[in-house]
């Protein structure tokens, strides 16, 4: 298919635009896509999470770790640092509630958290690796350590 703009090159950029039910289709070559300034890396405009109305009351308060004003967060849609969540707790509350509801964090089950291998287990893995690599001196040391640990248990 030829580019619908220059009618010369092969079209490689296919772009469909829906604006309020109005559909426009483009088939362009790379040069024309550039000329038309189609930014295909950002297909959707991003909504501002924090709304666009000015909040003058909070303007003077600054986060002392990253230096953000609430207005910086509002404009960029990005929180400046972990401390901002406590400095701007009230200001962020509404946004967080509108994304997640008013729920609180649920920790993962303890079982998952303590799923770390025991010391003996990890030593055994090291021992296997040592034997595979023919490091027999290291393996002997590891073997004794495991014996000692298991003796205690």
């Amino acid at each position, binding site marked *: 298919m030829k580019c619908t703009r220059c009618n010369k090159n092969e079209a*490689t950029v296919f772009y469909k635009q829906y604006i309020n039910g109005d559909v426009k289709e483009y088939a362009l070559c790379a040069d024309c896509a550039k000329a038309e300034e189609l930014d295909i890396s950002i297909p959707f405009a991003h909504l501002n999470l924090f709304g666009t109305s000015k909040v003058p009351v909070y303007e003077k308060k600054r986060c002392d770790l990253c230096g953000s004003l609430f207005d910086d967060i509002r404009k960029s849609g990005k929180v400046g640092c972990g401390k901002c969540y406590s400095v701007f707790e009230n200001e962020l509350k509404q946004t967080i509630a509108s994304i997640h509801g008013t729920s609180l964090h649920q920790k993962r089950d303890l079982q998952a958290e303590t799923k770390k291998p025991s010391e003996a287990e990890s030593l055994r893995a090291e021992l296997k690796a040592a034997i595979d690599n023919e490091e027999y001196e290291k393996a002997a040391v590891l073997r004794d350590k495991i014996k000692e640990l298991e003796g205690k248990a």
Partner: protein
Amino acid sequence: MIKDLDTVISTRVRFARNLKDYPYTNRLDENGAKEIIERIENALGDKYIKTDMTSVSLSHAMSLVEKHIISREFAKSNLPRALFTKDDVKLMVCEEDHIRLQVIKIGFAIDECFSDALECDNKLLSKLNIDYSEALGYLTQCPTNLGTAMRVSVMMFIPGICLSSKLKALVSQLDKLGITIRGMYGEGSESGACIYQISNRETLGVKEEKVIEKIRDIVLQITDIERKARNELFKKGGISLEDKISRAMGTLNYAKCISSKEFCELYALVRMKGEYDLEKLDSLFCNVMPYSLCEHYEKTLNETQRDIARAEYIQKNI
């Protein structure tokens, strides 16, 4: 054993983490970024392979995007940043959050991904001071990720659903269940390849295990619908569908020029039939994307050259 490869291309579990007392990456300076990279490198130990992203060419970085190893933003960022890799575990350091820990596996491997991610996460949590609050969970640059800061995504191949016009209904049902579905390279990136990414939306107020369960259940349901739709399609399509698929195989094997759009459509037809080794076909899919092709041939190729190189590459590797 690789599971459900007919409908699931790959599974991914991702955690976002930030170090306490450092600004997030939108307010971080170069020195801060370097310090963070060093801390994480020390915490991970020497089993992880480090790639300094500032010393990698943009074209190589973009080929990693095409292989779903890193994000587009990470490839293009100006900050010092690093990628740490150990088998299927990959950590982007100084992406949107200080740490994006992800585990990607072929086929449907949700439990394996989750347990590998937990293992690495536990290591990070035990060695680093990670930003966390009792009420909000893990703190992230974008408030949409607060809580578990976990995203589970499953890359699904659903030509049966797409070709029988069931996609629209599926999208709206998933939306009601709090599940996001989008094109394979993120928002708005639909192609003729019938590949869609299914992921959880909820992160705050829900346990990780519950999210895993929910995604598992939904993926299995979609797999079931897809298999039925595909059977139906083959039954109804008869010789004309068989002909279309055979022609697609012919084109892949003998054409001299194949554009990426055409490749996506051929891929969908051939993969649906299960004619080739699916795993090989999927890796071919990533390797014939524009940047990956240029990387393979070690030179910049224009579009026409790429289409020729693509056809050549396919015929050598299929």
